[in-house]
């Protein structure tokens, strides 16, 4: 028997509202333009053989020439989208994220990298749901998620499943981005669009090769880099013993002394990440947590955005 904790349920509601608000602000009314069948385009005829669906028999041709032929249409692309959410321990930080909040459970939706990431994932899922396109979800790391992998499907019920997973997952452990992307490629088996939502706090050489666009069914990987400005600028001034929720030893740090060298390191790292992602044929989008999700979604669906259909096929 599946049980829901109240916090998860409240989160589902929040996520849904969040998604509606964000999507509504970006493409209001877009879902009404999606009409079933209108997207089918006639291509040619083929002779009927037993077993073919009779639904596409051209009755007019049979009436005129007493031949059984089937009408053939251009197939719908229907490229599935896979949201890959980094739920590693490091995602629990950011904004007001502290050790206490990390250890207590789910980080707040507002401020933490994890909260920002699940809100963004919910919004994109909702957007694709309105577009009638299949969308799936895979959780990297994390714990207490109902499912770690939700295959791409359409429909409202499927959307609810995705939202449930997003609401229930707690940041935990390590993401292993590279391994998971490779495994996901084998699960999908055909071409798909993979949308990676992560802070990318793993060494580049462990995951960059996995986003290469290759194979019989190429997987198009789009990287949304979740960034906490405070974290990357080391804005906190109080000395502290810093630790990573993913493990390792503590590091006593005086931010005032460390800031210049750290900022230089961050700038180099950001440039290297962006360059490496683009070099592998993937797309890169920076997503600071203080950037509104509707604004980010607008960038996503704009001309060169990740979700633009033309760029997918």
């Amino acid at each position, binding site marked *: 028997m599946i049980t829901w904790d109240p916090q998860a349920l409240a989160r589902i509601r929040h996520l849904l509202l969040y998604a509606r608000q964000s999507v509504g602000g970006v493409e209001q009314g877009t879902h009404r333009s999606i009409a079933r069948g209108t997207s089918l385009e006639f291509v040619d005829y083929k002779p009927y053989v037993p077993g073919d669906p009779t639904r596409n028999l051209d009755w007019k041709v049979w009436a005129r020439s007493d031949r059984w032929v089937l009408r053939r249409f251009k197939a719908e692309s229907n490229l599935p989208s896979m949201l890959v959410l980094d739920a590693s321990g*490091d995602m629990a930080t950011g904004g007001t994220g*502290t050790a206490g909040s*990390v250890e207590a459970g789910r980080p707040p939706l507002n401020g933490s990298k994890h909260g920002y990431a699940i809100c963004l994932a919910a919004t994109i899922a909702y957007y694709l749901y309105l577009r009638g396109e299949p969308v799936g979800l895979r959780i990297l790391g994390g714990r207490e998620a109902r499912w770690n992998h939700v295959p791409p499907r359409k429909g409202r019920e499927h959307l609810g499943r995705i939202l449930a997973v997003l609401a229930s997952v707690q940041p935990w452990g390590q993401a292993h981005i590279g391994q998971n992307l490779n495994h996901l490629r084998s699960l999908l088996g055909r071409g798909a669009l993979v949308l990676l939502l992560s802070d990318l*706090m793993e060494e580049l050489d462990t995951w960059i090769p996995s986003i290469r666009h290759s194979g019989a069914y190429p997987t198009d990987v789009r990287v949304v880099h979740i960034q906490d400005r405070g974290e990357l600028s080391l804005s906190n001034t*109080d000395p502290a013993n*810093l*630790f*990573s929720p993913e493990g390792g030893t503590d590091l006593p740090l005086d931010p005032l*002394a460390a800031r210049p060298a750290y900022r230089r390191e961050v700038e180099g790292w950001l440039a290297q990440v962006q360059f490496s992602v683009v070099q592998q044929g993937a797309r890169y989008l920076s997503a600071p947590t203080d950037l509104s999700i509707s604004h980010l979604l607008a960038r996503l669906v704009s001309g060169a955005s990740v979700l633009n259909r033309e760029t997918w096929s």
Partner: protein
Amino acid sequence: MNFSLLSGSSLAMSLLVLGPLLAHLASRRPVQRRAFGAMMLLRRVSRKLRRRRRIRDPVLMILRMALVLLMVLAAAHPVLHLPRQPAELGSSGRLVVIVDNSMSMSAPASAGAAATGQTQDQSATLLSTARSQAAESIRRLPSGVQVGLVTTAGGPGSPSGNTGALRLTPTLTDATKRVARMAESIPPTFEATDLTGALRQSRALLAGEPGEVLVFSDEAGPTLLSSSLEEMERLLASGSTVIPRKLTAQNNDNLCIASTQYAEGIEGGSLKVQVLNFGSRQVEATLSVRLPDGREMNAFVDLPAAQEPAHPSETDLPGPPGRAQELFTIPPEVQGGIASVHVLDSGLQQDDYRYFHLPRVGASRVLLVEGDPGASPTRSETYFLERALAPWGGKRSGVTPDIIGPAGMESLDPRRHRVVILANVSEPGPLAADLNAFVRAGGGLVITCGDNILPQRYNSALGSLLPAMFRESRNLVGRNALGVSVQPPDTGVPFFSPFGKKGTGSFALVHFYRLMTFEPLLRDRDSRILLAMENGMPLLLESRVGRGRVLVLAGTVDLAWGNLPVQAVFVPLVQRIIAFLGAQGGESASFHSGTTGQTLSIPLPHRRLSPSVQGPDGNTVPSTVSGGRLLFTPRTPGAFIVHLPGSSPLAMVAVNTPAPESDLRPYGSLKELEASVDPTLFQSQVELGPWLLITALVLLLLQALVASKAADSGNGRRHAQSVSTAAAHGTPIPE
């Protein structure tokens, strides 16, 4: 103006100043634990970060460090020293004037010093200037001031030579005019500065009461100030003050003869003269040696300038003087006596001569009595002795042997012959009376043994001269054996001193297989064994009889009993024995040395003698006889002769000027010495401790103010963070 710490050890607490620094560094050590999502990036720079630690609130930390530093300084009792104005001369009512009239004060005074002394004469000496200034100072004293006068030289003197100070006024007196006239007539001396004695005399004049001691001196010489430190302390302890009036010489350039050293040689002697240059310029000087017989020898010597101080810590002291030495060869026929060396220089004239003893060089005549001519040269003592005494002929060697047989003893002339050698003489009886008189008058007698020697005859004839009675001759080993070797001699004995440099080993090559044996030594004639065999038997014995010496060789000087004549040590040994007996031992007068102003004590041969002392100028010098010793104090350098009327000299005394007086360069100053004893005489002190404490209090308040402001800003920052956290979690915002 300078600065000192009464409790310098308190500065060790200055390490406390690190306290605030460590505290501020420690305050930056993290106290809370916080999750951080970019640890991967942070760890990349963590190695650099560990080396850097910024100090929080640097202004507050500096204030706190300054506060600690001030308190530590206050605990160290810092004192500021300010110069003190000197009091007016005579203000204490009791004044002693010390005038330095030592030899160095005879140097020409500088123009400034002469003008100050109102002596415009270009030939003014330091002493004349000092006399003028002292008299002027005494005349200007306020009425009622009691004054005394002391000189640093010219006093009675002592064997140690440091009681030359002379009190010219028995007590303090208010007759200032008379004392001023006495000051103007202080005579120059050739003596050393006895500043210690002068300060002691001043203390005696002041009779323990506080007073002033006015010192007119050139303050020159390496030991002047250091030796007077103790007396200075006593004087200042009685509440008195010393007021130095330093006089500066025209220049410090001066030459002096530091030492003369005579060394005997086979062909006469050599005189090594060492000359010092205290000046700062290299000079060429002329040296003249005047021998006792009136002959003169001249040489030029290049003298380097005085050196810089050898040690960096002695930069305020003069360096070592420039040194040079010159060797003079003394002819072998020179008579003994007091000779002199003269160096010509433009500096101090009083130290240009140095007098020294020149022993009679060589034994011009040796009477060799041949007892056994021998059938061949190897059996003839004369053959070997003749060649050992005059290897290059008699005139060139300085030794002319007269060879006679035992029957020719009448040819012994004590005025010509200095040494008689009895070489294996069988019958000494006929010679005994002459030899006895000869030795007692200062002659030297050498007896060598052989097969002709009959012990009983020698014991009966020369028993009063021998160091030990003859016993018998005895074989030491078999006839064909090598024999017994000789022990290395004691090079401290004058005979053997030339063998000191690796020469003693040659004695081990000398072997004897037969020797004369002796009864025990006769102690009444200072008998001793000079050389012994390896088996302990004596080989060379010595006795002193009257003014002469007798040496007995237990072996032969031919090859009959041993191999001595063919060994390398034979010639130098014979030369040494003859030179010593003929020169040193042959002189009737004793030799002594001394310095001017030093009371000399000359031992007399008999207690009842009352000799007189003749000075260099031919005049009789005052002297006294006490306890068999003659006491006198020479005032001038030169040759002093102690003699009885109508007889040969008993003693000859070479008197020279004191060496430290030749160095006219200052080695510190009397004022510095006084300041080292009692700095408060020249400085007033201001305690800085209270002012530092007040400043520390101000800093304390200031840092409290800065600390409270820093705390306020810290609280505000923490409050803002907690508000932000609460907003994110939906909890109530703290007040």
